């Protein structure tokens, strides 16, 4: 039983890394009013490019870099479509998502069946020697901890810095922000690119560390889960992070329950995060004060400066 508990805690920390990175990126983009539904495609592209780079260079760092850069390039397409060509955000996100799935399949094609060494565990000295807790919390690769650090940084920047204030202002009301002299298009574009890079890192973690191989379709809907997570977390960093960990835990629990011989249809567990998210969304949306506080009012709306 202890072993299973350790597996779920340790496994959750690792399983959540791709979700959390991508969710933090998408959160920042959405805070600026940009709903990019192409996360799945961006993660896939990051996974394929990251894996190929890691295989070719033998370096995980370059793998993450390649994943971030490639997915970021893809998000440029979205940024250009929505800010310069004033295209509909929903359609642009889908375009980028489809493009990303195709591009990732093309990039990774010849590397199917190869593998890389998984990312090394960080040596945390005496911490990892603590019984149970050490094994569950302190025997991980560096990205597990960097994901948490990234969440803290994103929270800090959004809530405590001028930059964060500008991003939120742009997301609340792009026309007011524009009137105040903020470069709305630039801010929104940058937030989208950040979202792309983070999705790319998340994808690269999946293919170079979590399941060290590339296979078409390996992102397996995580990009869509990320979109749901933002809503689940009602656009608050700590809730999004909590949601990501909860989601990771539930998906592992499903497997452990099978091994333990309990007879619950796995599909109920698989569907539960979405059901819960819809309920959360309904509850927070009903309360105008709550939704105004967190949800970017201009989400999904294109903005064109009046002159």
């Amino acid at each position, binding site marked *: 039983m202890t*072993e*299973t508990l*350790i*597996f*779920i805690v340790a*496994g959750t920390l690792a*399983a959540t890394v791709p979700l959390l990175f991508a969710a933090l990126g998408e959160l920042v983009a959405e805070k600026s009013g940009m709903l990019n539904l192409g996360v799945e495609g961006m993660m896939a592209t990051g996974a394929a490019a990251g894996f*190929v*780079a890691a295989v*070719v*260079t033998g370096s995980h760092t370059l793998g993450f870099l390649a994943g971030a850069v490639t997915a970021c390039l893809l998000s440029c397409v979205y940024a250009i479509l929505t800010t310069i060509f004033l295209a509909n955000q929903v359609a642009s996100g889908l375009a980028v998502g489809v493009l990303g799935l195709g591009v990732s399949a*093309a*990039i990774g*094609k*010849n590397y*199917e*069946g*190869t*593998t890389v060494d*998984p990312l090394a565990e960080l040596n945390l000295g005496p911490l990892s020697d603590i019984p149970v807790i050490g094994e569950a919390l302190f025997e991980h690769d560096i990205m597990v901890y960097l994901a948490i650090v990234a969440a803290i940084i994103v929270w800090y920047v959004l809530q405590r810095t001028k930059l964060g204030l500008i991003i939120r202002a742009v997301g609340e009301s792009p026309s007011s922000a524009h009137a105040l002299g903020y470069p709305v298009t630039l801010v929104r574009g940058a937030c989208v690119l950040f979202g792309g890079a983070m999705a790319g890192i998340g994808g690269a973690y*999946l293919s170079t560390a*979590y*399941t*060290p*191989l590339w*296979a*078409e*379709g*390996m992102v*397996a809907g995580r990009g869509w889960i990320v979109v749901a997570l933002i809503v689940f977390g009602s656009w608050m960093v700590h809730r999004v992070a909590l949601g990501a960990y909860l989601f990771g835990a539930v*998906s*592992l629990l499903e*497997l*452990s329950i*099978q*091994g*333990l*011989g309990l*007879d619950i*249809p*796995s599909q109920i567990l698989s569907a539960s995060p979405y059901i819960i998210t819809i309920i959360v969304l309904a509850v927070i949306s009903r309360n105008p004060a709550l939704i105004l506080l967190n949800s970017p009012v201009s989400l999904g709306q294109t903005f064109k400066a009046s002159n």
Partner: protein
Amino acid sequence: MTAPKRRLLGALAAGTLALGLATSAIAEDKTKIGFIYPSPVGDVGWAYRLDEGRKAVEAHFGDKVETFAVENVPEGPDAARVMNQMAAQGADIIMIGSFGYMNDGLKLAAQKPDIDFMHASGYKTADNFSNFQTRNYESSYIAGMAAGDVSKSGVLGVVAAYPIPEVVGIINTFALGAQRTNPDITVKVVWLNSWFNPSKAQESARSLIAQDADVIFSLYQDTPSVVTAAEEEGVYVVNTSSDMKKYAPNHLLASMTTDWGPYFIDRVQKSMDGNYDGLAYWGGMADGAVGVVSLSPDLTKEDMAEIDSVIAEMKAGTFHPMTGPIVDQDGEEKLAAGESIDDDSMRGIDWLVKGVETRIPN
């Protein structure tokens, strides 16, 4: 252009050529054979083995045949189109490599009596529609024996695709083989309900390891993700389809292999001779269709001797792994002492033997 980039582009081009085909300048007398795979060929797994069979056909018949393959064709409405297009391009034989192609294949077979079909892992046949399976339950018995030999915890874990009879049968003999070398063995199963989900397969392996399993069985998974996870966790691993030694150099206990070559060659010859039939082929150790490779050096001499003797008995046809007394999970006797299961019952098997703790979901 930088070196890595050029390499990437070159590789892209080369890869598509490898699977592509040249339709130009085909001599009319060549037998054209189309192959359809449900997943990417890669270099491990189900589609890879089928493609090895395709290569064996090419090697055997040389200029007399022309083969072409399409990979990654999902089971669903699009599969029929690929088959039809192969037929339109003059295929004489079509190999359809997944269970889910069965009904579309049968429909086309009825429309095109001139084309002979080979179908992997189904249960329906027609005059020009034969199906093929392998008796992987034989090799899994051997893998089970090895697992029983090395397991210290007495718990084995299986990461399985769907609870179809073929998979159920393999789990049964895996458990029986392990109980032969260690009577106290229990087996836990995680059903993935997917042939292909590398992350989830890998998570399942780790969840089984956390539940004390010290030998993991990657059953019909199209990627090596379970094997690499086991190597990382330092537990033994057994897999199906092809040799995965390179993914787990230290902890691969055994790889169960499948060789479609002899069967494909026989079928193609029959089709050429004009006496194709709706054979339901079920090849085993005796036919050279299944085997066990890369047995771990950690197995003792005595272990190996016993394994070798069982393999010899299977090849000679004197030993069936499903021979009584066998009781099911509920303790009900399914086979009396000395009684072996018949092929029809094995094809439709829907119960698990005692010692397997997980139930078949329904």
